[in-house]
């Protein structure tokens, strides 16, 4: 298992501030809806990837995270499209329902460990997709649900209108990503986060020290479920449509690849970097005219990252290496790496 990077030391507040400022200015720098849309979707995936990484912190390898996106997405899609709710309460309820589902599933399933847990979550993911397909009276099956757009928010002289452009969605996504990142960062810093790592690194020792494994696993799974559900709701509303094939096994695998390629050393930096880079890369591959080269390049990049940035340090570690070697030039850090 790898050591977790303490990004408090590596990334100074000024840099974080600069990055946040840059992100906030994106809609002013570019008004291209296509670019914005790629950023929004990578933000949405980043939330799900953060959830996956949190579950992985407790040593559980979930192959069903897309199912919680589907639960969240369907909750708010059904509420808005079938029952006439407005976006905001449906959005919040999506997170709650997904969290509740994660809690209930977690209570039953998390006592199974290792690869068996992965297979159970994989199967549940497929079951959710099939149920969404068959339960036509509620989910409208394959014909899909058309989700409602959030109502315009009047702000006196100015109105935030989700119909006319994607900029409000961009800021909504940025807010949600920032909130998720803040929560996950606080969890990672706290006693709880260290307990997660302890549970994963040595379950037997952790149990002997009086830590109840299930408690930590269920907490991580539920928190991940809540945020993944919110991401799913945003996904469904941003794309305006939700069909059962949109969130299945392949999307779960995509989440997992983004997480590992981005780096699991940090709960926040790795997932965000991994999803933005991989998603953008994937979007630009769609323009290539040679059939099959998209998949080939995507696969090659994943394998290369795993070969050259090993042990799940991922792309985020490039930053850590750059900072420690080029900016700080401190011997101490290099020694740390050598030991590792």
């Amino acid at each position, binding site marked *: 298992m790898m050591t977790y990077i303490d990004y408090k030391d590596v990334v100074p507040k000024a840099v974080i501030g600069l990055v946040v400022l840059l992100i906030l200015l994106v809609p002013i720098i570019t008004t291209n809806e296509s670019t914005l849309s790629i950023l929004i979707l990578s933000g949405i995936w980043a939330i799900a990837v953060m959830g996956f990484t949190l579950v992985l912190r407790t040593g559980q390898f979930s192959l069903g995270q897309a199912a919680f996106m589907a639960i969240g997405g369907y909750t708010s899609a059904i509420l808005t499209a079938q029952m006439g709710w407005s976006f905001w309460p449906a959005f919040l309820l999506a997170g709650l329902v997904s969290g509740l589902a994660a809690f209930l599933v977690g209570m039953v399933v998390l006592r199974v460990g290792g690869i068996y847990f992965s297979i159970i979550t994989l199967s549940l993911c497929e079951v959710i997709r099939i149920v969404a397909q068959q339960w036509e009276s509620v989910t409208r099956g394959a014909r899909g649900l*058309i989700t409602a757009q959030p109502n315009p928010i009047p702000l006196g002289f100015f109105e935030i209108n989700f119909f006319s452009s994607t900029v409000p969605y961009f800021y909504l996504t940025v807010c949600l990503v920032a909130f998720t990142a803040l929560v996950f960062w606080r969890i990672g810093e706290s006693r709880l986060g260290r307990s997660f790592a302890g549970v994963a690194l040595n379950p037997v020792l952790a149990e002997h020290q009086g830590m109840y494994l299930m408690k930590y696993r269920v907490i991580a799974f539920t928190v991940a479920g809540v945020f993944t559900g919110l991401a799913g709701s945003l996904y469904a509303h941003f794309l305006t449509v939700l069909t059962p094939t949109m969130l299945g096994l392949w999307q779960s695998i995509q989440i997992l690849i983004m997480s590992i390629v981005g780096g699991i050393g940090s709960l926040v930096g790795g997932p965000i970097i991994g999803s933005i880079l991989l998603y953008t890369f994937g979007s630009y591959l769609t323009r290539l005219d040679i059939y099959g080269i998209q998949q080939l390049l995507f696969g090659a990049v994943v394998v290369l990252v795993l070969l050259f940035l090993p042990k799940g340090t991922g792309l985020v570690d490039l930053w850590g290496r750059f900072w420690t070697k080029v900016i700080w030039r401190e011997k101490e850090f290099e020694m740390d790496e050598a030991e590792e």
Partner: protein
Amino acid sequence: MKKWIIIWAALFITVLTFGLASAQNEPIIIKVGMPTVLSGPAAPWGQVGMDPYHAWIDLFNKEGFKVGGKTYNFKLITVDDKNTPEGGAAAAKQLIYSDGCKFLAGHWTWNFPSVATVANQAKVILLTRTGNEAVPGGVYDPKKFPYVVFANDSMGQYIADHLAIVEAYPKYKKIGILDCVIGKGPAADITVAALNKAGIRFVQEWFPFGTQDLTPYITRFKEAGCDIVYIAGWVGETMAFAKQRWEMGFKDMKVGHSGPFVSVDMYLAVSGKDAAQGLIGQYWTSWEFKKTKVNPKYIKMCKEVQEIVSKKQGKPFNYTGWVGWLPNHLLILSQAMQKAGTVDDTDAIMKVIRGGTFDTTIGKWTMSGAKTYGSPIVFGCPAALSVIKGDKEVYLSEHPTKPLP
């Protein structure tokens, strides 16, 4: 020194004049974006149309079309949509906002809502086909999507296919209809209603996505007494079905699919020569329609395209599905632009398209919306069918597609 300056100046002026002159003759390009599937399991069906589309556009561009004294040409830009709504929306946004397309064309089903939303927000005209989403009960709503043109009535054609089968085999016992479960939806409901109304005997079955082993479904059809099974557009499954029913000994069960044969050789190779005999498919290429009149100019053009593509790919190119889609979309579009006298005012062009009459590859079509799905526009190829005999496909029967009430 002065001499050189004069020579350079003369050269410069010559180049400039020629440049300007050629620039004036140079046709102006109109970009048509096409989000289509180019990766993943469905990619062959996006890929197979690419060469003929480009060849057809090249032929069309030789003449081009004139609007307000200027000559215009079409250019097709394709972006992979990965066959998902997410990919469809992303591809449509790239085409509209990065490439500046004012027109999109495409013929998918489950991407329709996301692409249509993007196109309508940008006031971009979307030429597509009718299908699961694009009928009442689906997501289509003429008020929500005013820039959508159903330039091809796949839905009506699918229903008419069944009628054509009945015309060809009037002594049939029962038709089995097989579709993948992800195709469930309003289109299937409408088909069932239309077939019931026409008094056709049939049973319907669904298989899960990715099924290659169809033995259980063959057995179910057999027990229900079907002697014809028609499969909704799943080519790989159709070939597997034909092969497996042959191996199970149900040799008198006829099998067909909606969609033209991709290449007869492929069916013979996958199903086996004996099992592939009598396979039914849609039939457009050779234009040997018996009830529908085809403009000879377009017959010539299409045959030329088949030859060009055969030469390019180095093997006979028999696929005919492309004829019904993009060529007709572009013909309607170019004529609408001429009538509207503009190439970029999409509102004016839509106004002309609604209720207008256009010359298409299969004759004049009036885009009357009152009769069809609440949408303004439907154009339809006839449901002409063929069967595989030996190693060739031959004409079977035909049923003209009419807009549904």
